[in-house]
């Protein structure tokens, strides 16, 4: 049973190794890193939390769909807990026979993860405040956190 969520630093190389094989000549990886700015504010770090069981379930469904649609192998990891600027927050690796499939599947998987996996992010700013990120809000932000 693979876990898609991890409290440890994500090793993109190890993730890619999982889906690499001699019959798959194209490997695409995507890594999402914690940026030092968001919505015009300077970010010092952030904290991810999740509805763990549902998040695992949704990740498994996304991976399964991509593997059957593009005849490829997919590996995914999403980090939880406190992260610093530059840390890998999420990584996707796809191995396929050809690059069309590898690029399309990787792009689709990260888009689906962002749309459907129940994970939340609280950003911490250089001024000492923090806020919950809401990608659906005009400024990408709901409200200051308690």
């Amino acid at each position, binding site marked *: 049973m693979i876990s898609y969520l991890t409290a440890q630093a994500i090793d993109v190389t190890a993730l890619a190794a999982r889906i690499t094989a001699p019959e798959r000549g194209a490997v695409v990886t995507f890594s*999402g890193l914690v940026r030092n700015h968001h919505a015009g504010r300077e970010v010092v770090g952030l904290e*991810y*939390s*999740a*509805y763990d*069981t*549902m*998040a695992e*379930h*949704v990740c498994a469904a996304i991976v399964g769909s991509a593997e059957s649609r593009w005849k490829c192998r997919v590996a995914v990891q*999403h980090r939880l807990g406190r992260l610093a600027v530059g840390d890998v*927050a*999420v990584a996707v690796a796809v191995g396929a026979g050809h690059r069309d499939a590898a690029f399309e599947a990787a792009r689709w998987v*990260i888009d689906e*993860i*962002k*749309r*459907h*996996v*129940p*994970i*939340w*992010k*609280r950003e911490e700013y250089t001024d000492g405040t923090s806020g*919950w*990120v*809401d*990608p*659906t*809000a005009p400024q990408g932000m*709901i*409200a200051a*956190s*308690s």
Partner: protein
Amino acid sequence: MTLHRVRLFARYAELFGAEQVEVTLPPGSRVGDLISALRVLPGGASLPGDPFVAVNMSQASAGTSLSPHDEIALLPPLAGG
């Protein structure tokens, strides 16, 4: 009447000051009824118009029926990735 436990996450856990709340509803109630009941709890007034509810780890709509042992969760806007 049926007691439903509702799991809360992230900003909603802060709004309600708890990771879980309990709501009692008549048998045959739907997700829309549950949301109405949540709105009158302390903190519930800040919920958006159409909050994301998951029932048994799948996205539900206002018309989704609730059964006594369903796993119900109220999810703030997702921000993974």
